[in-house]
């Protein structure tokens, strides 16, 4: 899952080791997250309450923060709002046991960048944290995405692979655009549903799989190398080679 960093930033987003701050008061959950992040090749620091977390986040240079909403001494949302008001732009993923639509809205409004409800699968959390990595967000500004011989022009809405034009439906285009922006990173089904369809629920059947396999058919059919990979138990990854 952990990809070596490549120099060609337009080819593969930065996906090297990250320095992650976990602010979580549940000792067991925090330890598990620290261990799991470490196994995935990242460095994780844990703060057990809001005040400590705020101090750590304020002084340390973290790539991503995972913040529980309900924390002793200082509420998670207040920690985030405090950091934002001090000009700290470290991407934040909010963890919450509440999981109402409202909570997501208030969480994101307070300055969070993503939101995940407990209980969650670690693969989901890891995929989201890696996507949040601020060094990867540079791709937002690019107008042409390239992964191997696949090329997507965001302005002309055209897609080519090995100089051959590929016709996509608007939704397929957005799906591919998202996958290419996060090329080299695992993208989960819920992330796709959220970012491509703007829905935050779990569909009963894996409708996303069908959309992805359709897209795969269009961008892989007639080409010898697969480019859109399925990551078992997690999601998908667009990657050349």
């Amino acid at each position: 899952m952990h990809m070596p960093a490549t120099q060609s930033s337009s080819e593969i987003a930065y996906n090297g080791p990250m320095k992650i701050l976990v602010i979580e008061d549940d000792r067991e959950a925090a330890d598990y997250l620290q261990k799991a992040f470490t196994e995935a090749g990242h460095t994780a620091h844990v703060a057990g309450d809001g005040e400590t977390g705020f101090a750590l986040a304020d002084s340390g240079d973290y790539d991503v923060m995972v913040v529980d909403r309900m924390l002793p001494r200082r509420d998670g949302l207040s920690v985030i709002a405090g950091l934002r008001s001090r000009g700290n732009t470290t991407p934040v993923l909010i963890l919450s046991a509440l999981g109402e639509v409202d909570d997501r809205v208030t969480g994101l409004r307070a300055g969070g960048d993503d939101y995940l409800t407990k209980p969650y699968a670690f693969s989901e959390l890891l995929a989201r944290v890696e996507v949040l990595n601020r060094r990867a967000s540079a791709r937002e500004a690019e107008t042409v995405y390239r992964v191997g011989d696949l090329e997507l022009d965001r302005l002309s809405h055209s897609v080519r692979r090995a100089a051959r034009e590929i016709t996509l439906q608007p939704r397929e285009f957005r799906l591919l655009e998202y996958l290419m922006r996060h090329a080299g990173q695992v993208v989960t089904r819920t992330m796709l549903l959220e970012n491509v369809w703007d829905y935050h629920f779990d569909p009963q059947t894996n409708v996303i799989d069908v959309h992805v396999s359709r897209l795969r058919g269009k961008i892989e059919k007639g080409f010898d190398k697969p480019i859109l990979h399925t990551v078992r138990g997690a999601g998908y990854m667009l990657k050349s080679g």
Partner: protein
Amino acid sequence: MALSMPAIMRTTAARLSALYLLLFAICAVLLVFYMTSLSARMLTGQTQDTINDEVLGLARAYQRGGLPLLVRVVEQRSRQPGANLYLIADTNGQILTGNVQSLEPGVLEAEGWTTEPFSYRRFGEAELERQRNPVADPNDTQSGQNEVQVEGEKGHNAIALVLRLPNQMIMLVGRDLGEPERFRAVIRRALMLALGMMGLGGLLIWFFVGRAALKRIDSVSEASRRIMGGDLSGRLPVTGAGDEFDRLSENLNSMLARIATLNEGLKQVSDNIAHDLKTPLTRLRNRAEATLSGKYKAADYRQALEGTIAESDQLIKTFNAILMISRLEAGYSSESTSRVDLAASVRDVVELYEPVAEEAGVTLETSVQDAFAVEGNRELIGQALSNIVDNAIKYSTDSTAKPSVRVALDRVGREIRLSVTDNGHGIPDDADRARATERFVRLEKSRSQPGSGLGLSLAKAIMTFHNGRLDLLPADPGLSVVMSFPEREDR
């Protein structure tokens, strides 16, 4: 119910009655005192005026005819019945003429108005008294001319003007105070009566109102004790009088009903968890146990672990769905609503499911009459619709004709209806149709299909959250699931 006094005093009604009684009594006493003193002063003033007139008349007689005429006039007037008193005495205070037989001592010594009412006795009274009351104390009659007659019941009070005639004789002109005193006594009696009545009224109000209130409150607290004891179906008594007690009871009753509903939901959730999560959890455990006890290659372990993860994910999904249903049924926050374009929701969901339908060989068609909008939550509506479309696609595949699902958005009366109709076998049995939206209910035929059995329950909870309805209607063939939204007020 026997009430001890302290218990009564602890009731608000009794305290209020007592307070009002006290305030009212103070006001009444002050008023009566003011009235009596005012009227007494007026009566005294009148009496003095009368006396002054008499004195003027006597003075004129004295001017005309001197002492003899004065004495004659006094004697003449003394014989007339009335409240006026006349007396002429010598310098020693010996009574010479008039209608006064005896006086309190000292009255004649000071000239001018008597400062205090004094008691006196008229001529002829002793005889009258004796005739009326023959066994009266004989001492009375033996009292001397000048003997002091004080505070006897037969003595009268009067006020008078004492004058000294030019020949040093003393003249007294006075007036009996019987009339004003009677008046004062009448007022005093009225006051006592009024106070007594007030006290009695206060006690009665106290007794009835206080006791009635106490009784009502006691029945309410008794009912609440019963409910606290665990009988959530119990309700507080409502008499139907529509008073504040009834209103209070009604409000508490609706609160209890709400609590009972929530409690019921909670109970259902725990039942569901016990029944329906136990099965996959047991399966999960057994799979792990079997993998551990057998002799397998690394790849088999990997496969078992992947299966475990997949099963756990399904469990998490089910769990989230249960929590979401409970929250929606509990009427969790309504702040997250906004204007939702239902036509866009239909477009989104149909677009999302179109590849799935195509793969299953199901025709997915839409019929949108107008860009209807409702007040709601886009996420929730999308989720409900996708659950329903998901179901419809699954169950249309057993159709005898070419399977198709039709999503229609329409207005019927004051409702906006979003219906998803398939042409599968449907649910022919009415009872089954009604049961299909209950949690974890998976009708026999659907057991073969994957799913948690929560899709329609969640859709129903979402519709309840939107003040709408979810109806399952036979479509002949197939099933029509109708989401009915109330029309937005501003449209």
